């Protein structure tokens, strides 16, 4: 853990060196999410409600998803960029080192520029909290926290899966974007608006609904089932298959004698 904090410090110092570039990229990131925000805003100006959700509720949902995604991206960037790490042989160096592989991959890249997106998300969260008619007691605040943590872990796991696939092939990895970028983009609305098929996929195949939808229903008062707030914890079980796949990938990579 101390080693990770050292890496963290190094990355932070490095990022701060290129102040202008950092600032521009952060602003750029902010603008990109701002675009999406404007899109939502204009849609609600025209339509008022969608599937019973109003603007502040959707903003709550979107901000939670965006914060989770940004956190996952910030810390798990090493996995996200894994294709490059493998193809330029850097992973071989990681294998040679006497430390946990995962720690080294994660420490390889900590991306602070994602902060632009996070800022946008936090602002929206504040707006959503202020404007919505949610009854903010302790349980609901815990719900939001768990939703964010659960989301970060699920997105992080998806990055790990992406990296694990890199052990087998470097071609056509673009489709994984569907699950990461796609989830972020379409996760801005509560998943049930996309219909039953999508809802089922997002519950049983990849546990998006466990941190984005079911706890959200409790949050905005659509259901009294307070147990929903623990669903993100259940969603964290997703970690198990993901890391098993990662271990399998590493074994496969070692055995092909690279």
């Amino acid at each position: 853990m101390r080693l990770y904090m050292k890496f963290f410090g190094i990355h932070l110092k490095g990022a701060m060196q290129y102040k202008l570039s950092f600032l521009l990229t952060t602003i750029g990131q902010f603008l990109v999410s701002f675009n999406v925000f404007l899109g939502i805003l204009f849609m609600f100006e025209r339509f008022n409600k969608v599937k019973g959700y109003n603007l502040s509720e959707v903003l709550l949902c979107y901000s939670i998803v965006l914060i989770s995604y940004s956190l996952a991206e910030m810390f798990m960037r090493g996995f996200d960029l894994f294709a490059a790490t493998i193809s330029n042989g850097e992973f071989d160096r990681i294998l040679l080192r006497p430390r946990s592989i995962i720690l080294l991959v994660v420490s390889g890249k900590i991306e602070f520029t994602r902060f632009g997106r996070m800022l946008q998300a936090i602002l929206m969260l504040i707006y959503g909290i202020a404007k919505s008619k949610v009854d903010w007691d302790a349980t609901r605040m815990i719900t939001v926290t768990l939703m964010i943590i659960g989301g970060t872990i699920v997105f992080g796991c998806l990055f790990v899966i992406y990296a694990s696939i890199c052990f087998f092939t470097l071609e056509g990895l673009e489709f994984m974007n569907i699950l990461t970028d796609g989830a972020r983009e379409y996760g801005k609305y509560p998943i049930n608006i996309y219909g039953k098929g999508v809802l089922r996929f997002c519950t049983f195949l990849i546990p998006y609904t466990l941190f984005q939808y079911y706890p959200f229903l409790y949050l905005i008062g659509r259901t009294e089932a307070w147990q929903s707030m623990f669903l993100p914890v259940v969603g964290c079980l997703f970690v198990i298959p993901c890391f098993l796949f990662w271990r399998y990938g590493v074994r496969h990579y070692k055995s092909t004698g690279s």
Partner: protein
Amino acid sequence: MDYVKSIYYDSLKYFSLFRIKFIAGLQYRAAAVAGIATQFVWGIMGLLLYKAFYEADASSFPMTFQALSSYLWLQQAFLALFMGWFFENDIFQSITEGGIAYELCRPMDLYTMWLFRSMASRVSKAVLRCMPILLFAAFLPEPYGIRLPAGVIAGVCFLITTILGFLVVITYGMLVYISTFFTYSPAGVRMVSVSLVEFFGGAVLPLPFLPTGIRQVVELLPFASMQNVPLRIYTGDIAGMQIVKSMGLQLFWIVVLIWTGKKLIAVALKRVVVQGG
């Protein structure tokens, strides 16, 4: 006009450059397949999203749902032509790392060279991806699939304005490349540019969904002359005299963008040479 003439005289050079880059681009089959899969999902999710809004309040929908479906699928099929976030990293690198010196030695105008390179790579991508998406969309049931254009004239004008819109995208992209001469790191300009193109071009939200008032202003910007015009002509949203006006606006922007680009690149190159590179 002189510029166009100069391209014409050297057209053999530029055309062979285009052809080389185009054929190279066609090799990326695996990436194309992954890209197509991604776009299917994007299209389907987009449709489901708008369907939810349509069910919320059909009367506020600024076009028929069928028109929207055609819009979304065409947008996906021709994404390679209109996407605002795609740039040739080689070009950025040649500026920031100095490889530009070699490019300047070639017997071709730098601006035009970049123009044809960008065009070739985008067209090859589009060619690889458009057919599967269009075929899939054609077989989807009404009103989720793509349907024939709103008339023969609409169809023809769609083709013409697609080419024009594509040229607007390309010439606009040139400005982003050229800005690197002045800012060193392309990241910032690039991101701002992407946001502008994506939003005002109708990729985040088709422009008819914008509130009246804002929409009128946005439609005058160069971004609205990119994918917005051809897609709406196809669905019949833009019809009659409006088509002529839109085409005129597209041509206007192409001329302005080329003129600005050439002026800026001249300024930039003067500095490069003076630095004794």
